[in-house]
């Protein structure tokens, strides 16, 4: 009997986590940082590296690839396997996609009997960047020929267009949007590893922050950082024999809007979700996701998010480690790791009591680009 005939929740669990300091620019190479995170995760699970026979990496985010070299701007499976001497890999793959997509692949590989212990990796590199200098006249090919000549580029301006329209349709304000940023920054103050740890932010600070692309300011955009994280994923059976309370993977919902939903797949009701990790590359994403996931209706998220409802102690604490806006831009890996840590009961000051189910929403909640919702559950 292969595990793929079992319900999703009985297939696999996260049993170890590893991470490294979150900094803007690192003195050490990304390859070394990634190796540290991998070894920490293996150790955290109480395993030795010889047990690791599966690897799923996400060296390139959905938005594109790094032009830098392996071990410098990104870290590939062969690089990491060589760096920490993983000699038993039977299943190893690098994907262009979200960490939660990597988790789904890991669960499938474990269910199909391809391997027993998967190391799931994400390393983020933040270089020192500046606007591209005008050495020669830029040219815009493909879809960009209709946007870049107008100075529209990257995610920020697109999401600023979306936010302006949303604010217009629903009467939402930036004062209301502050609730999302305030929650992220308050939670970051309970996470010593967060970039914004130890720094307070008032409504006045928020409203006075400089514009990047109005109506998005500097504080609505996540912060590019350098860091690495690793998770150990194994079969549900093996998970029960390890040292930590496992975070079982109880459901996925894929990229097709409206076709499936994470609550049906996992059998977990919205009211049972004790805590949520919601991708916040830009602050309004949290609003869009809350609506998309049905925690409130269309246009209701600005009101829903007020009065501490999405903060620790509230009805639905969101991004308890700080998320991208508080912890740093980790392309959804930080969300996945914090979700697992909440279910494992290892979050200390920011632990949500009786957190039996945590929803992790990755990627952009609007448009046709990749999105992913994962439910993590206790036994």
């Amino acid at each position: 009997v292969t595990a793929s005939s079992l319900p999703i929740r009985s297939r696999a669990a996260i049993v170890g986590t590893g991470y490294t300091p979150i900094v803007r620019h690192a003195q050490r190479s990304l390859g070394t940082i990634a190796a540290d995170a991998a070894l920490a995760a293996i150790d955290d699970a109480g395993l030795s590296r010889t047990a690791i026979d599966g690897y799923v990496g996400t060296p390139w985010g959905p938005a594109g690839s790094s032009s830098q070299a392996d071990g410098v701007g990104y870290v590939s499976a062969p690089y990491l396997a060589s760096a920490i001497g993983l000699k038993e890999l039977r299943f190893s793959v690098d994907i262009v996609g979200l960490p939660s997509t990597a988790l789904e692949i890991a669960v499938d590989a474990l269910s199909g009997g391809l391997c027993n212990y998967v190391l799931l990796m994400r390393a983020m590199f933040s270089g020192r960047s500046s606007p591209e200098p005008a050495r020669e006249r830029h040219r815009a090919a493909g879809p960009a020929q209709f946007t870049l000549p107008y100075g529209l580029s990257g995610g920020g301006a697109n999401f600023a267009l979306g936010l302006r329209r949303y604010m217009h349709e629903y009467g939402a304000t930036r004062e209301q949007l502050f609730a999302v940023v305030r929650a992220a920054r308050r939670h970051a103050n309970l996470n010593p590893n967060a970039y914004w740890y130890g720094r307070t932010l008032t409504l006045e600070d928020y409203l006075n922050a400089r514009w990047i692309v109005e109506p998005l300011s500097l504080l609505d955009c996540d912060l590019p950082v350098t860091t690495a994280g690793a998770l150990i994923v194994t079969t549900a059976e093996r998970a029960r024999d390890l040292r930590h309370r496992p975070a079982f993977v109880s459901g996925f919902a894929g990229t097709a809007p409206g076709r499936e939903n994470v609550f049906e797949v996992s059998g977990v009701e919205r009211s049972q979700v004790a805590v949520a990790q919601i991708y916040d590359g830009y602050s309004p994403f949290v609003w869009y996701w809350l609506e998309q996931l049905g925690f409130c209706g269309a246009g209701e998220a600005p009101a829903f998010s007020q009065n501490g409802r999405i903060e620790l102690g509230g009805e639905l604490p969101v991004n308890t480690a700080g998320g991208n806006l508080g912890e740093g831009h980790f392309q959804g890996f930080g969300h996945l790791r914090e979700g697992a840590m909440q279910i494992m009961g290892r979050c200390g000051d920011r632990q949500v009591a009786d957190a039996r189910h945590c929803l992790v929403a990755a990627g952009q909640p609007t448009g046709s680009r990749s999105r992913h919702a994962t439910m993590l559950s206790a036994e």
Partner: protein
Amino acid sequence: VTQRPLPVEDEDSHPYWEAARARRLELPRCDCCGNYCFPPRPRCPRCLSTALTWTALTGRGKVYSFCVVYQAPLEALEVPYVVAQIELAEQPDLRLIANVIGCEPGQVFIDMPVELEFEELDSDYTLPQFRPAARR
């Protein structure tokens, strides 16, 4: 002087830029379902017909949404500037990206009526742009 990036036209977009050079806004329109296709492609994404006819548009529209860029992706662009989604009068979901020119960023608003304008980038390229519509 703002050195805007130049579009690189391809098989699908050549007639679009050719029309712009002649100061017309044209898009492929589906002979079967009447859909205007943007970005221009040789197959209607709504009904999958390949029978399309390049058709001139009135150039009238309104601002669907807009943003004001303060941190430009390229050094060559002078900030701040407005980037807008212009919803064309011909079809509700037909939206082009353009700058709203001929007014201050603070004067732009959602549903603002706009009309077509052309900006010459160089001797080869002319860019469709939009300005506040003249009062009628």
